[in-house]
């Protein structure tokens, strides 16, 4: 069994009267694609927000390896190797595609204000490396042809993919994808599934929120189901799919199992 790299322990968060997550435990194993599913408002995005430091848990902890990262600054968490995409796209609209990715890569760069002004050899080296890396990632994701377009003018599908590319730019150990296929047609979803697999095969660990069951069944190694802030299932896709509790809470009548 691969080692656990992200460990959520008894995570609880309350917003006023609403308990969005109730004592959730979740382990992410190195190299896997773990799907996080559940009805609307179950708390999936909230899990991402807790992992990335957007929210602080009411109780419980998030461990990256052995380090508790809840309470750490957001940019620091990114630096530690967790990157995410957003459910409603949050690109830097006035930057080009390439710049968006380079901005991601900057988290690994060291050169500061002074170095940039002086144009030290290191700064030039880093710049060069960043640009090369960004192009590489764009090619990897298959959107390099858009490199010089402003992000806000890109077609929706490309924007979603750019979100992934930007996150990859930060060289994360763990990639969090929040509904990457929303707004895609079936054909595009198939392409996306291939990309996600490719990313995993390149050595990343992926935590994926998605509502499209065929996509999930196709690529995930394991599925965790949340309902009303509680974990109700955590198993292989095929098992989860037939779990009556999951069917009742999430899938509805199994009309079309593919």
């Amino acid at each position, binding site marked *: 069994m691969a080692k656990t790299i992200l460990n959520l322990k008894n995570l609880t968060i309350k917003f006023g009267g609403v308990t969005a997550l109730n004592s959730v435990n979740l382990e992410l194993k190195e190299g896997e694609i773990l799907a996080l599913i*559940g009805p*609307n408002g179950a708390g999936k995005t909230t899990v991402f927000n807790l992992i990335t430091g957007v929210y602080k848990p009411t109780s419980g902890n998030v461990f990256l390896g052995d380090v508790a990262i809840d309470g750490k600054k957001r940019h620091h968490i990114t630096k530690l190797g967790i990157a995410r995409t957003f*459910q409603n796209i949050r690109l830097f609209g006035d930057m080009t595609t390439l710049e968006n990715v380079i901005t991601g890569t900057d988290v690994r760069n060291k050169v500061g204000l002074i170095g940039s002004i002086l144009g030290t050899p290191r700064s030039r080296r880093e710049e060069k490396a960043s640009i090369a890396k960004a192009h590489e990632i764009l090619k990897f994701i298959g959107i390099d042809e858009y490199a010089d377009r402003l992000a806000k003018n890109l077609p929706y599908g490309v924007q979603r993919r750019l979100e992934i590319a930007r996150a990859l730019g930060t060289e994360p150990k763990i990639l969090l994808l929040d509904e990457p296929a929303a*707004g*895609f047609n*079936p054909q595009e979803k198939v392409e996306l599934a291939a990309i996600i697999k490719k990313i995993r095969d390149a050595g990343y660990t992926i935590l994926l929120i998605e*509502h499209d069951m065929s996509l999930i069944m196709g690529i995930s190694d394991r599925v965790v189901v949340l309902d009303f802030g509680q974990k109700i299932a955590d198993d292989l896709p095929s098992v989860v799919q037939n779990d009556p509790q999951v069917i009742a809470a999430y899938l509805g009548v199994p009309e079309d199992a593919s």
Partner: protein
Amino acid sequence: MRLELKDLHVHYGKIEAIKGISVVVNEGEIVTLIGANGAGKTTTLKTISGLRKVSSGQILFDGQDISNVPAHERVDLGISQAPEGRGIFPGMTVLENLEMGKFNRKDRKSEMDEDLDKVYTLFPRLKERATQAGGTLSGGEQQMLAIGRALMARPKVLLLDEPSMGLAPQMIANIFRIITEINKTGVTILLVEQNAQQALQRAHRAYILETGNVVKEAKASDLLNDPAVREAYLGTGAH
């Protein structure tokens, strides 16, 4: 109410996003627009509701040219939209958001309550969250709110832009059922969907859009069985 687009052209700056499309939505119909990302579906809906200006062509509503009527007056005519990206008022509570749907209607209190009840029965989750700020809802909850809000206006024509986006499978089935139900009460519906399978099952007729042009118009059931369409829009591993 019959809605008709005649040779419609729409621009973003110099870019022509809609290149002369003609679309008819007859009273009482569900018509669906399908097409790949960037085909111009959202732009079409925005133009009908008045958020984008018509470059040339006409929008006929009930036989009357409304292409120069300002957006807020089109709402009074009976055109209501649940927009892409949902357009929730983030700082308003769920209830206030719903009330905004009735902004210009001088309905009696009882009618307001009646409509609220209707929306709450369709989406019980909204009732639970009536006092929560719209901006803090989950993605799917926001989608429900957007649809509910559009219904509050008691529209004659309802424009839905990817209503199933971000919804859980169970909820998706629900939404499409609701669309049919609303339609049965006499509301004309223009539906934009990526979930073409479901959309075509529910719609009477459909248009296929490609880069700003209508490339195909047919009865929905015909398209469901059209191999080319299945290939392009329903995914190869069709159901």
